């Protein structure tokens, strides 16, 4: 928050044009849709080759298969596949973007189909998708793992 008074003018001049911002938001929205659907073909097309997937809040959390810190398209896809989730469901309370970063603030539910039914693990989360040259260059999560709730559907 340390660039304020001049920010509006500077952002208008530097890649912060409304059109660029709309395009970045559209890529991020398409990415989040593919991510929720666990559509790996779509994700492969959207990730930059050297993309980064990171969740600093996952580092020391037991039982989640983390930490989630992968660099490179293939590593990211392998990491996400290893979750084995059927799909993810986001509930976005607030969304905004700045300088190629699209922020989704809300909750995510990881859905697993089991022999006994459907189980959803829901976490409060902030997901920040960074877009460059029409591709996702970074997926950054901050997850409230201690706020997880479990639901059987």
């Amino acid at each position, binding site marked *: *928050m*340390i*660039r*304020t*008074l*001049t*920010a*509006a003018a*500077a*952002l208008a*001049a*530097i*890649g*912060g044009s409304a059109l660029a*911002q709309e395009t970045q938001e559209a890529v991020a929205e398409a990415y989040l849709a593919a991510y929720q659907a666990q559509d790996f073909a779509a994700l492969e097309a959207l990730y930059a080759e050297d993309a980064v997937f990171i969740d*600093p*809040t*996952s*580092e*020391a*959390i*037991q039982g989640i298969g983390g930490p989630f810190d992968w660099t490179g398209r293939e590593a990211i896809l392998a990491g996400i596949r290893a979750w084995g989730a059927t799909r993810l469901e986001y509930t976005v309370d*607030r969304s*905004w*973007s*700045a*300088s190629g*970063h699209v*922020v989704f*603030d809300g909750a995510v539910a990881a859905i697993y189909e089991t022999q006994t039914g459907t189980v959803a693990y829901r976490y*409060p989360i*902030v997901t*920040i998708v*960074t877009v460059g040259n029409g591709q996702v260059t970074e997926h950054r999560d*901050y*997850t*409230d*793992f*201690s*706020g997880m709730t479990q639901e059987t559907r």
Partner: protein
Amino acid sequence: MLRTILISAALALTGTSALAQETREAETVARAYMDAYSRVDWDAMAALMSEDIIFADTTATGTDDPQGIVTEGREAFLEMLRGFEAQYHPIELGFVWDTVFASNETVVFIGHVNALYPTEDPAQHFRWRSQQVAAVTVRDGIVIAHRDFANYPGAEQGLVPVE
């Protein structure tokens, strides 16, 4: 075998408890650090910074910083904060957090900045308000990383009466 299971369970519980304690301590430090940031009290912030703290705000792009702001080290960060103060004379950053959560060493703040600046009219302040997410990582009781994301394009700004 039973002993192995019991020892494993005890270690897991001890580990969980230690992690929970570490997380609580991280949140206490991070809240104090962000309170100082909100008050533009750089000395109080500095006391909670590690020598090699990394600060990043990659949403703060400008003509001089097309990739945003990234500083490495306490002195570099403080120099930037003091430069900001010298240029704009902020009264406060006035953070209001809707949500704060901590997960291991990282504490996440979600809400708004409500920065106030003086104007030539003593009865009015200039207010700059934006959505903001901040992530503060604490290790051994001090902040080692601080990352801001602010909605610069969507900020509301204007004059407000001095309260």
